[in-house]
């Protein structure tokens, strides 16, 4: 069974540009989560989808971040415009019941 996949693995952009991260959950998992780890800090929750609906977006830092999950399969997380403090590793996780399985993350560097 394929695990959670994320694309790209690395992204380097300049401040003010737009970046879109993609997550493909494990097939059949209704729950999809986005998390972020910034330098030196713990992994923090961003938001949670159940199928295509946003269940909890309390962790989204501001309105420069937009997450979508059209059709309830893969999800995208867009940062527009990117700021220096957005640099970090963005993880996606999926679950069907309780256990969340994580993808390898996208390392985003904003210069």
């Amino acid at each position, binding site marked *: 069974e394929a695990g959670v996949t994320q694309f790209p693995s690395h992204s380097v952009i300049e401040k003010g540009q737009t970046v879109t991260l993609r997550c493909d959950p494990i097939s059949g998992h209704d729950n999809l989560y986005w998390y972020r780890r910034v330098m030196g800090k*713990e992994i923090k929750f961003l938001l949670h989808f*159940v199928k295509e609906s946003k269940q909890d977006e309390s962790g989204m830092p501001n309105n420069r971040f937009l997450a979508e999950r059209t059709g309830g399969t893969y999800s995208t997380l867009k940062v527009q415009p990117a700021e220096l403090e957005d640099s970090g590793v963005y993880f996606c996780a999926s679950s069907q019941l309780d256990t969340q399985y994580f993808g390898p993350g996208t390392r985003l560097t904003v210069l």
Partner: protein
Amino acid sequence: EDKVVQSPLSLVVHEGDTVTLNCSYEVTNFRSLLWYKQEKKAPTFLFMLTSSGIEKKSGRLSSILDKKELFSILNITATQTGDSAIYLCAVEAPRYGGATNKLIFGTGTLLAVQP
């Protein structure tokens, strides 16, 4: 504010040693505590603990939860170089009547096992 604290932050041991990693938590709504191992990329699931005093085991790894004292430990016996990784503790803290199960993470413990 909900928080999870892990200790030590880092640890260096020799192969064959036994290690104990600690995780304490303070959260408003507790459902479960999870341990993950992160080597290079994706954190990989180790254990989910929901009840106090029941040890979970997988090979040389074991973990137990104390819901009264609000902590968990992860033990690794006869350590090997392949155990070198960041070990993450996370607490599942439901919101909105249980409709969402966000994880609250500690900063992790970096374990280095030397030959």
